[in-house]
């Protein structure tokens, strides 16, 4: 029995055409913040839009501070999300607390929205494993550095949720580059055939370090990766946080009703360097970047809110002050965090410390205390 297609394919009854497919694109706000069609019901309340705005601004403030900390040697290599904050923030805003976010490494805005603290994120990027403890987002997965490898974890935790028949969902975010990887494909295929409660959200920022989107795949859209695995795929304007929230929200409703996974391609743009180790001027021209500043998500929503009469200069000043204070306080708390005991590196390797490893730990402990007493001399 052939598998029943989940997609909105049209099965054409001609003997020569086995199937046809199409890919939708959604956007509410144009780059200037002008409304293109009626807002969806969930986005009509100005309070909702203001909280989204706050999420975007908070993400950018975090990024800005993180880059500053890196430049002064207090953080390791850092990947800013400047210009693409609406993807993770929009998705996170559509999720419930019990859902699971399985991020790449550029979803700071979404992580913060869901309860990871700025101190935790600073700790992680500062090279301290305690940053992944996520006390207030305990279901969420830590950042995943090996590109795309987490898509399978998302499918796996979705299977766990499905087996327990919980009405929860998983959102997995990765970049345009990641869509070229076989593990991402296998994850989508498994999710499709097992109808897993997971949304694969492609944050297509047009670049994978120096490799442009056009050099990743001949596919005209990345949403159509979905067609290969028989699940719905669609595009959304990734700089329109309302559109992202709406499209992800609709997908999550389907997912929670066990109606199967999907792929959403959010079209955005990486305004900054790939990371603090990167120098994008080596491979892309300013003239390419500049126009994209006209499309970025924060100004877009701000303009809409302002035009709609929901946002004033005073609101803006108050928000910036609040958020700057929060982030500065977090940075200070991060810098003041007492270092981990070095020997902690042994403690989580196995559920119980094996004899072999206990001996190695002992060696570290005694050499550290030797160093300490040397230093004390």
């Amino acid at each position: 029995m052939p598998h029943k297609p989940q997609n909105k394919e049209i099965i054409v009854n001609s003997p020569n055409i086995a199937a046809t497919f199409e890919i939708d694109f959604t956007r509410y706000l144009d780059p200037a913040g002008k409304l293109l069609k009626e807002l969806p019901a969930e986005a009509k309340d100005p309070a909702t839009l203001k909280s989204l705005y706050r999420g975007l601004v908070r993400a950018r403030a975090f990024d800005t501070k993180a880059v500053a900390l890196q430049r002064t040697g207090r953080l390791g290599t850092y990947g800013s999300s400047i210009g693409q904050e609406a993807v993770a923030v929009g998705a996170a805003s559509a999720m419930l607390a019990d859902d699971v976010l399985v991020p790449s490494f550029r979803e700071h805005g979404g992580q913060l929205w869901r309860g990871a603290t700025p101190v935790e994120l600073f700790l992680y990027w500062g090279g301290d494993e305690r940053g992944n403890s996520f006390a207030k987002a305990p279901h969420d997965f830590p950042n995943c550095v090996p590109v795309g490898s987490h898509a399978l974890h998302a499918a796996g935790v979705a299977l766990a949720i499905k087996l327990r028949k919980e009405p929860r969902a998983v959102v997995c975010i990765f970049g345009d580059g990641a869509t070229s990887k076989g593990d991402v494909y296998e994850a989508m295929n498994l999710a499709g055939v097992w109808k897993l409660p997971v949304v694969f959200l492609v944050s297509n920022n047009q670049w994978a370090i120096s490799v442009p989107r056009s050099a990743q795949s001949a596919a005209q859209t990345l949403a159509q990766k979905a067609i290969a695995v028989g699940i719905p795929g669609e595009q959304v304007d990734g700089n329109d946080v309302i559109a992202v929230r709406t499209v992800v929200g609709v997908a999550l409703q389907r997912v929670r009703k066990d109606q199967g996974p999907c792929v959403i391609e959010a079209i955005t743009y990486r305004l900054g360097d790939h990371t603090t180790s990167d120098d994008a001027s080596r491979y892309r021209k300013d003239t390419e970047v500049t126009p994209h500043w006209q499309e970025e998500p924060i100004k877009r929503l701000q303009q809409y809110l302002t035009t709609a009469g929901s946002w004033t200069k005073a609101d803006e000043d108050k928000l910036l002050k609040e958020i700057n204070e929060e982030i500065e306080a977090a940075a200070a708390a991060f810098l003041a965090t007492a270092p981990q005991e070095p020997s902690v590196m042994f403690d989580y390797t196995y559920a119980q410390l094996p004899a072999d490893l206990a001996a190695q730990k002992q060696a570290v402990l005694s050499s550290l205390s030797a160093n300490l007493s040397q230093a004390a001399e």
Partner: protein
Amino acid sequence: MSETTMVQAVSLALARAMTEDERVIVLGEDVGVDGGVFRATDGLFTRFGADRVRDTPLSEMGIGGISIGLAAGGFKPVAEIQFSGFIFPLIDQINNHASRFRNRTRGRLQCPMVVRAPCGGGIHAPEHHSESPEAMFANIPGLRVIVPSSPRRAYGLLLAAIRGSDPVVFLEPTKLYRGAREEMLDDGKDLPVDRCFVLREGRDVTLVAWGAMVPEALKTAAEWEAKGVSAEVIDVATLKPLDAETIINSVKKTGRCVIVHEAPLTGGFGGEIAARVAEGAFSSLLAPIERVTGYDTIMPLLKLENVYLPNAARIGKAVDRAMAYA
């Protein structure tokens, strides 16, 4: 009581684990209705249903990565990789994720999963079906690597592997699936997964082996007994974390050591054991440690398989060399 083969012992352990803990999920290619190509999951599908005995698409990376997500999500996946040669697409997931989840989240997320795969030669299988990849996993911190050598040990070690909370690579020698059989009870007793097993005591030489080389070592020990050489035989069983102490203590007593494995010599796990013994039993060694292993060549197709694989005779020659050393 009738005899149980090793593949039956594996089935029994899986069924027992699934019965006692409903978080245990078996997944892999053809593990469902077909019962696995070696029949290790035979009967489980009927007993536990398609949700818990899950046929996967042909997707080894997927099996690895999905298991990690399942484990972090509260289940205890036991994944089957169909043949040893197809375990390599999992290494990325095992090395970069499974072994690290607990550490990188400081204990918040764990990864209790078992990857079972057949290993080793001796059954005239096709290309890529007879390799011994254990050394590839032996340098991955956070992982347990286990190779059983008899039905009882397969049963007890697999139960312990599933009951534990660490990611485990569990390699089952195909030659023993039906080649090893013994009387055993399905009593739910597990065996320690941080311990070597001394299978036979001896005075003159310690034979250290795992998997299908254990019966060969026992055979040598029995034959050489007649020649007046008393060999102690140790089944390493859990390669990682390694119980070096048991091996070292044995060599301190016997003064000689022969290590046996099917994988190629260079970079094989025998090197690690030799290093530990050379260090730990330094002043007791009466002869250089011998390694009897596969050659540093590609595993040949079936016609030359038996020239490649170590056997009791080759082990015996190494024993003779060790005994003759002066």
